[in-house]
């Protein structure tokens, strides 16, 4: 008797912000991956990819966290991350960070090569062309910087969103311009960050869309925080929430429960 065919074994790197702020995104990622035939596991030993330390110049801490993350994930066929920023850290920066460590450099390269941002993994690796979901609203989309420029995430979310029933898509002016989050940038230089997120919020408003999506919770917290402070009715969600059909399960980011 033939074994039932098993899909790839995927380790989900949840990310700090999804874990803490938006667990729904984690479950949305799991559902999308399982629907596409993957077996999903969430290693308990994961914490943070180390990017905050890396970008603060604390290389030793970043290396330490990179090694822990690699150890927790190197046994999987793929590592999938519902964030372009954290995926970019593992995929693009771990090999550089550990290049001088003969024991870890190959392990870093091994994990880096298998690490993907969620939506681009679905489209580019698994060949997913549509999702079974409904979302009745006009949507606009912010391209988060790391996903866009480090990983080439641009067409993939638009492609899958086009298959969601009820969605009307409208492009965001300056969609590729940074929202001003930038990790610790937003608290180190709050005035500049504010200027940038004000521009982003104004662009969102100019589209007339009812919902803003993006692929990174960091940017979403920033943009939602600005829109909510302005009293904007625009709903803010992670793209995976809409693609998985889980948007009904939790209020939009920064909105009160209905």
């Amino acid at each position, binding site marked *: 008797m033939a074994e039932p065919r098993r899909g790839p074994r995927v380790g989900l790197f*949840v990310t*700090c912000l*999804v*874990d*803490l*702020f*938006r*667990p729904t995104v*984690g*479950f949305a990622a799991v559902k999308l991956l399982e629907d596409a035939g993957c077996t999903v596991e*969430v290693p*308990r*030993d994961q*914490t*943070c990819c*180390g990017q*905050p*330390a*890396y*970008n*603060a*110049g*604390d290389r030793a*801490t970043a290396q*330490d*966290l990179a090694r*822990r993350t690699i150890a927790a994930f190197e046994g999987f066929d793929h590592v999938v991350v519902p964030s372009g920023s954290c995926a970019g850290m593992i995929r693009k920066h771990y090999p550089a960070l550990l290049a001088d460590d003969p024991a870890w450099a190959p392990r870093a390269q091994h994990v880096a090569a298998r690490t993907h941002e969620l939506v681009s993994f679905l489209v580019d690796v698994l060949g997913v062309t549509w999702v079974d979901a409904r979302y009745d609203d006009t949507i606009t989309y912010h391209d988060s*910087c*790391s996903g866009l*420029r*480090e990983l080439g995430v641009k067409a993939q979310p638009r492609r899958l969103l086009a298959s969601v029933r009820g969605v009307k898509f409208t492009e965001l002016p300056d969609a*590729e*311009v*940074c929202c*001003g*989050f*930038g990790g610790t*940038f*937003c*608290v180190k*230089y*709050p*005035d*500049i960050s*504010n*200027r*940038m*997120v004000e521009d982003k919020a104004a662009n969102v408003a100019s589209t007339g869309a009812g919902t803003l999506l993006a692929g990174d919770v960091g940017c979403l*917290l*920033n943009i*939602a*925080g*600005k829109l*909510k*402070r302005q009293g904007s009715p625009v709903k*803010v969600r992670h793209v995976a929430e809409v693609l998985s059909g889980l948007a009904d399960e939790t*209020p939009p980011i*920064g909105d*009160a*429960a209905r």
Partner: protein
Amino acid sequence: MESTAHSFPENARRALQDDTLQYMLAKSRSGFQLRRAAAAQRLPEFEALRDQGRDLKNHVLEHLDVYLEMFESKVVERGGHVHWCRTAEEAREAILGICQKAGAKTVTKGKSMIAEEIAVNDHLEAHGLIPIETDLGEYIIQLRKEPPSHIIAPAFHVSKEQVADAFRAAHTDLPPDRPLEEPRELITEARLMLRRRFQEADVGITGANFLVAETGSTIIVTNEGNGDLTQTLPKVHVVIASIDKVVPTLEDVSTLLRLLARSATGQEFSAYTTFSTGPRRPGDLDGPEEFHVVLLDNGRSALLGTEFQEVLRCIRCGACMNHCPVYGSVGGHAYGWVYPGPVGAVIDPALIGIKEAGHLPNASTFCGRCEAVCPMRIPLPKMMRHWREKEFEEKLQPATMRQGLGVWGWFARRPGFYHAAARMTARMLRRASGSDGKLGSLPLPMLSGWTEHRDLPAPEGRTFQELWAERRGKK
């Protein structure tokens, strides 16, 4: 130039409150971006040329001393003089010496960032000479007594009304009621005033976009033609250039020229690209009798062999600042020293010290647009991160940030504690938000910068790890 880079946050705040500046930034930044994108799009080989430009400059940097020697010998062969200067001070003295020897009174100047770097105007003025900037943008800011705010558009931040005010204040021999509302009128007036200056100048100083080792030529790339008048009319032409400007051959410089204007202004080619090789030749009816090249190191050679070597590939097109959202928010003056924007955030700490310029490499979201448009593919974010590493090593960052990172790092290394702390934080923030879905203020002073301008969306209340463990338990 006196640095105010250490007060970048205050400079930035002032810039954000300056309505004229904000208007000018909003008006200009998209134009630069659209024009560059169109020019890049129109040349199918553009990306491949960027690769070649990068490789070519890497080759030059690995052979920098020998190309400089070759350049020098060609200049001397053609009757020119080369002045090697380690520091800004040496360069100022060299230029002053040339001017004094020529008995100069008026010195016209083409646009040069190196001249800004060594603050040559102040030095000449202090010795009784009259330096006149002739690039329109530079002329405007010279009248306004301020530094350039952009490396290729020095008066980027000035409105036409402010230009008119500066002209009325300076050109007192013209009728006070003349109309100066339109850019055309302003340009005509500047042309008239500067023509007189070109004629009376004894020395003309220009920068150089490139130096060619093959021929001993210096190159200026301009649009106005002021640089050409500056170097053709006076008796003496002084070129001031940093050592990283040298390029092996005319073919090599052609490759870089294909990248420069497209990246800078989105032009296919600038109006004037001029190659100067030595002084006036026998029989020539015009041109300078003396030709001097002042070669400035000022800390650049020390960058070779370090993690900052690649920044020496820069050809000063300004694309990084044109596409930088931080530059686009605060403009160039906020950076506080000669080179603003992403390339400034890498070069300034190298030239004036990381202690003075420490904010600059931090004032970036690492959005990566600078690297994405840099014709020389300089990994600017990576190098800003290297500066942050130096600051971390030298404990230059604020104590609160270091401590915060320390605590966070302690937890992040211990998954059990980390998950427990995340659970607590999620609950606490959720409770504090009530039924609102967001928080308008936070008890942590470190995060006040966030809530000053925006709400903090509340967490859902329980962490993913917690919920996932439950779900697994049920299965």
